[in-house]
């Protein structure tokens, strides 16, 4: 691969990059001005479809296709910008919103224009106060410059952007959880269908897209489809359903590396390339032991799997759930997998919204088991209990409404599949004499 010149992060580090003046001095809003004059909404949608852009928030659904599902006859159409970035290890949306809020807004305006939305709800997680302030100021600048409001740049197109603040709940990143939260209710994900494109926010057709996704829309309108498709990984010819992994990606790198940070490259960099070329290697001259490929929901890679490419198919080939957010968290050789799993199980037990019993009870149970193992009271039987939980909670086994439980299950499943010896050794050495104990389970008769 030749030198890659960042585009999504091109303005990061430039003085005043969060202001409209600096953004426009660097070519900002030119694409939007051209598009509003020369392109119909359908043209924008077609271009995004042709680019092969897939959602950057985690699920990887083709963005243009999502837009075409909108019920055209029903009005109004709402656009929700998902800025509830909460997946552990992930911070690329924060950097875009803090350092280049106008790029996000330009992408948002283009996406609204394409989908016919007249109101966009910009749902930002509470924990980003600087991003909040800069986005609020950027929106004000846009209204003042006629880039938002009742008559965008004199074209007659009207768009309002409403900034909406979350209240620290991971589930609001799930698109229908976000919609429920926006409506003022508890953020319980909805059963689909109907999908938001048919019945979304306030029961109207709605598109929900991620911050990085709409930033890519801006780049596609600026630089064209051919440019976008020249980056990344083309579809697997043996898999007719693969839409490919085109375009640039913001990789978040954290944990035990020398230089944690947000790095931009084409989709398909390997975990090892990220760690070595961008991250300065595993810290303190140590060896790597494991890594999370795309936020904690995606599971675990062993060190001998670090050649895993970060495209939409890569992590799945290594037993992980998927690409997720391409947030790589590196663990060095001193890390205990039991400790990592304890952390992961605690997170999901805390963040399960409580709607689906298998998730609410399963994540809480798994966390209790990990507390027990970590405290030195583990039994070998616990590994089977954990595996049982991991195999039965989630969309994949068909027991939950949303994918939170799949994300909770994957680190458990991967840890047992890839680090079973270590977990067994931990249990045996911390609980000698009792690790084989299986308390008899009293027979229960349930009453109705």
């Amino acid at each position, binding site marked *: 691969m030749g030198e890659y010149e960042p585009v999504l992060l091109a303005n990061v580090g430039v003085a005043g990059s969060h202001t409209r003046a600096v953004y426009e001095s660097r070519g900002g809003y030119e694409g939007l001005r051209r598009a509003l004059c020369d392109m119909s909404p359908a043209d924008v949608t077609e271009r995004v479809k042709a680019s092969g852009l897939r959602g950057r928030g985690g699920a990887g659904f083709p963005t243009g296709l999502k837009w075409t599902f909108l019920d055209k006859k029903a009005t109004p159409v709402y656009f929700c910008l998902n800025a509830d*970035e*909460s*997946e*552990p*290890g*992930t*911070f690329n*949306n*924060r950097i875009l919103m803090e350092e280049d809020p106008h790029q996000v807004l330009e992408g948002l305006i283009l996406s609204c224009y394409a989908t016919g939305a007249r109101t966009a709800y910009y749902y930002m*997680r*509470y*924990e*980003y*106060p*600087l991003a909040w*302030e800069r986005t609020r100021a950027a929106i004000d600048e846009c209204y003042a410059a006629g880039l938002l409001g009742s008559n965008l740049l004199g074209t007659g197109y009207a768009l*309002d952007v*409403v900034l*909406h*603040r*979350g*209240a*620290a*709940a*991971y589930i609001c990143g799930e698109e229908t959880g976000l919609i429920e*939260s*926006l*409506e*003022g*209710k*508890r*953020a319980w994900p909805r059963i689909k269908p109907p999908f938001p494109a048919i019945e979304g926010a*306030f029961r109207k057709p709605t598109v929900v897209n991620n911050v990085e996704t709409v930033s890519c829309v801006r780049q596609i309108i600026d630089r064209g489809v051919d440019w976008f498709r020249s980056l990344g990984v083309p579809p697997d010819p043996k898999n007719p359903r693969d839409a490919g992994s085109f375009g640039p990606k913001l990789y*978040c*790198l*954290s*944990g*035990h590396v020398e230089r*944690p*940070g*947000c790095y931009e490259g084409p989709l398909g960099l390997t975990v090892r390339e990220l760690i070595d070329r961008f991250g300065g290697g595993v810290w303190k001259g140590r060896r790597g032991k494991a890594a*999370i490929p795309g936020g*904690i929901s995606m599971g675990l890679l062993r060190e001998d799997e670090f050649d895993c490419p970060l495209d939409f198919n890569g992590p799945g080939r290594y037993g992980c759930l998927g690409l997720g957010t391409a*947030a790589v*968290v590196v*663990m060095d050789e001193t*890390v205990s997998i039991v*400790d*990592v799993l304890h*952390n*992961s199980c*605690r*997170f999901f037990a*805390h*963040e399960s*919204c409580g709607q689906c019993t298998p998730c609410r009870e399963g994540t809480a149970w798994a966390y209790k088991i990990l507390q027990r193992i970590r405290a030195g009271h583990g039994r070998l039987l616990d590994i089977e209990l954990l595996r049982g939980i991991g195999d039965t909670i989630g969309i994949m086994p068909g027991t939950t409404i949303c994918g939170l439980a799949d994300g909770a299950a994957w680190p458990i499943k991967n840890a047992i599949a890839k680090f079973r010896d270590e977990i067994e050794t931990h249990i045996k050495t911390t609980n000698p004499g009792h690790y084989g104990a299986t308390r008899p389970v009293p027979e229960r008769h349930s009453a109705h």
Partner: protein
Amino acid sequence: MSQPSDRILTDAMIAEIRDYFPRYPTRQAVTLPALHVVNRYLRHVPRRAVVEIAELLELAPAQVEDTLTFYAFFPQERPHGKTRAWVCRSISCHLRGAEELMDHLCRQAKVQPGGTTSDGRLTLEHAECLGACEHAPCVLAGDQLLKTVTADDADRFLRSLR
């Protein structure tokens, strides 16, 4: 309807909440914004405020209560400290010493996680991923993100509290 003098929501709060009405097609959508407004002024959302928000939004108090309690974000019983500090405990921060950092802060400030110092200056809480993993371990103290926090940084932060 309670008398104005009994009200816990001030005219300023009510005006701020009403400002949100035209931005949403339903009143219920103003629930979270309203809770944020009240919490910013009072540092908690007591029961009476829930009832008054419900009146403004034309909802049953239980609907507001339902949303409020879902988020575990708005204190109900008593106000949080003047500064509310969140110590991230998710994986990236955990790998870089978040647990030790929380222990240190608790020892120095003489509080347990979730607690408020006796002088009311600080509420110290765990947070799930703050989305600042490149700065692990990190703390969000009010609107201030403390990055790559060492024990010395933590002490300096505690001394800075008023």
